[in-house]
């Protein structure tokens, strides 16, 4: 099977869907000749033309508003925010228009739009260009939130997101763009709302997404040599969350650690832990459920400070050992 990068996988998902369905089009800043800030839309203008690869002014509010409007009348727009941080400028049309149209209009409207959001830290882009804001988006009923961690997942999930009749926020971690993975050439898609167990284990369950999946898997492999068996569950879709897979895993292992880059307070780890606590898995817990998350701090510029602000492999390993040795 060919190996392509996460970036290429997203690119391929878009062009394949745009070839299949003429109502799909891309809107965003610098997506044309420049090929997108992260190079994701390279070559697309040449193939599809300026109507379908629609480069916009710097108007996040209008970009998302336009996407919502076009979707309401039957198009399938993919809108791109250059950085996830900028979605804050466009929260209004996302939350008040796209997320609610179907509900407010008594089930008689659909808004099949995708909002692509490159996010996350580690590139030295500092506080206003490094956030992981998926927890805020999960809190709005009517929106789906997807966060792929591999090239294979990225392509399959983006295709499903484009085809989904609901507004879908597609969170891409910038550090993953260059990571390669096996991706089939045949058409495939991954259903939204289905988690994947990326590594099976029996001593402890890690629930994690985005770049933290890679870090968790690295730690899991290292600990395997010592006889510590860690199960890594990647929800892939954060909203709606596949709680069933998570609950079964925690029931099996009796221990849970949620790892995400998003800030700890109000972060979605709390959502996962509360859901597990409310489930039959509670009866089988052998240790307090824990979370490892971004510190409650804007992302700093300095390289070391930036790394210290979010969980790293060493932190994940230390936390697992602490849980297993009953330190909590």
């Amino acid at each position, binding site marked *: 099977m060919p190996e392509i990068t996460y970036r290429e996988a997203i690119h391929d998902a878009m062009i394949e869907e745009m070839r299949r369905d003429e109502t799909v089009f891309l809107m965003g800043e610098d997506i044309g000749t420049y090929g997108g800030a992260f190079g994701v839309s390279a070559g697309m203008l040449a193939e599809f033309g300026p109507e379908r690869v629609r480069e916009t002014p710097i108007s996040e509010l209008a970009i998302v508003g336009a996407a919502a409007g076009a979707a309401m009348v039957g198009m399938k727009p993919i809108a791109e925010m250059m950085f996830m941080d900028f979605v804050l400028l466009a929260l209004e049309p996302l939350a008040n228009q796209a997320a609610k149209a179907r509900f407010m209009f008594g089930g008689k409207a659909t808004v099949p739009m995708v909002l692509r959001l490159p996010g996350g830290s580690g590139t030295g882009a500092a506080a206003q260009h490094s956030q992981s804001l998926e927890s805020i988006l999960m809190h709005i009923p009517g929106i789906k939130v997807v966060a792929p961690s591999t090239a294979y997942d990225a392509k399959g999930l983006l295709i499903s997101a484009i085809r989904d009749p609901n507004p879908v926020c597609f969170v891409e971690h910038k550090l993953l763009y260059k990571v390669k993975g096996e991706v089939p050439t045949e058409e495939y898609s991954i259903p939204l709302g289905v988690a994947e167990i990326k590594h099976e284990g*029996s*001593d402890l369950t890690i629930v994690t997404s985005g770049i933290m999946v890679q870090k968790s898997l690295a730690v899991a492999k290292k600990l395997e040599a010592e006889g510590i068996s860690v199960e890594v569950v990647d929800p892939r879709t954060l909203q709606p969350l596949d709680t069933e897979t998570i*609950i*079964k*895993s925690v*029931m*099996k*292992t*009796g221990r849970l650690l949620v790892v995400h880059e998003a800030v700890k307070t109000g972060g979605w780890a709390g959502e996962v832990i509360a859901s597990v606590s409310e489930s*039959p898995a*509670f*009866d*089988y*817990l*052998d240790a307090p459920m824990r979370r490892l998350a971004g510190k409650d701090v804007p992302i700093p510029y300095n390289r070391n400070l930036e790394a210290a602000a979010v969980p790293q492999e060493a932190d994940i390993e230390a936390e697992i050992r602490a849980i297993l040795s009953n330190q909590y």
Partner: protein
Amino acid sequence: MPTPFIMPKMDMDQESVTILEWLKKEGEKVEKGEAVIVVETDKLTSEIEAPASGTLTGILYKENEEAPVTKVVAYILAEGESPADVPTDKAAAPAAEKPEAAKPAQAEEKPVKATPVAERMAAQMDIKLEQVPASGRKVTKADVESFAKGQFGVEPRVKVPATPAARAAAQAQGLAIEGISGSGPRGRVQQADVLAAAQQPKPAAAPPLAGTSKPMVGMRKRIAERLTASYQNAPHIYLTVEVDMSAAEASRKRLNKLAEKQGQPSLSITTLLVKMVAWALKRHPYLNASLISDEINFWEDVNIGVATALEEGLIVPVIHGADKLSLSQINDHVRTLASKAREGTLSREEIDGGTFTISNLGMYGITSFTAIINPPQSAILAVGGMVRKPVVVDDKDTLAVRPIMTMTLSADHRIVDGANAASFLKDLVSVLETPELALY
């Protein structure tokens, strides 16, 4: 459709039989009419034949288990059918008495046999009891728990579901959490459960009494059930009377000399008793009657059962039409039945139909005793052994030593009054003390 193999009902008030042996096993071929199951009722051992030819499958009751009569105990598959065609739930099997399709009312859930704990747990977990496979005759808590786990498809590393507080309490109390039963949802152990277990004093380890045990099944069980029913349902009255057996014995000796000359077996006391009791019964229909569903049936025939002790229990072979038989005929019956009883070869007809029972414990030296009526009969005569006693023989208070036999009649007071019973006994005594009366 596989043919249901239904356990036949062989007796009026029979509800179940004990399966002693499956002559054919699961998956073996059987022929229609072939004996497949050996069962024991309270009266005797019988063989049940296959209702059709085919492959035996879906056996629902094991050896030494009780099987309900008129219900399906197995299935016989025709050519081309597979065990998958067999309905899996015992409750779903059709009853022999209702061959038509189940009525809509019966389509409602039949109560599943489950322990109260299992029922509660299943309700809490939103599990339908019908779906839970029972490891035994009833669905237990363990069955529900493993079904629930099966629903999640995982084997938890933590074996016992318990709250953190419960585990801490168990540790503090020095108790193993495995040994504590949980009152929480899904069988979870709560702190309160641990505290309650800690409260209970440990039972002093009593040295167990040595001995062996035997399941109460089959004939023994049936006897227990019937006698209990009789004792509970029929208010017994007891009348005791003494008989001077000298005339009867003298008569019997003369007859035995005759029999010896003819090469016939000698007559027993039992034979004489049967003849005389039959004579008396003919004159007292209330003692040859049965109360069945508010109807008193006065039987035409006098069928006297003779209680016979076997190692495994009591059996009562019946001499039919005893009032019409001669002494020698009665004697033959008595001897034949006794030997068949010992060999275990009595037939249904030889057991059924008794209208009165005589029970004699004289051979054990018992002077008198009371017996429990054999339902649906209305009376039973308990006969003790003959004892040589001094008695007053005339109105001059002359004493003489005579063979005195004490008889106690138990009668069902619902249909037999004291006067009737007394009158019967008076006649019986008369005919035993003056045997010629029977010829009159």
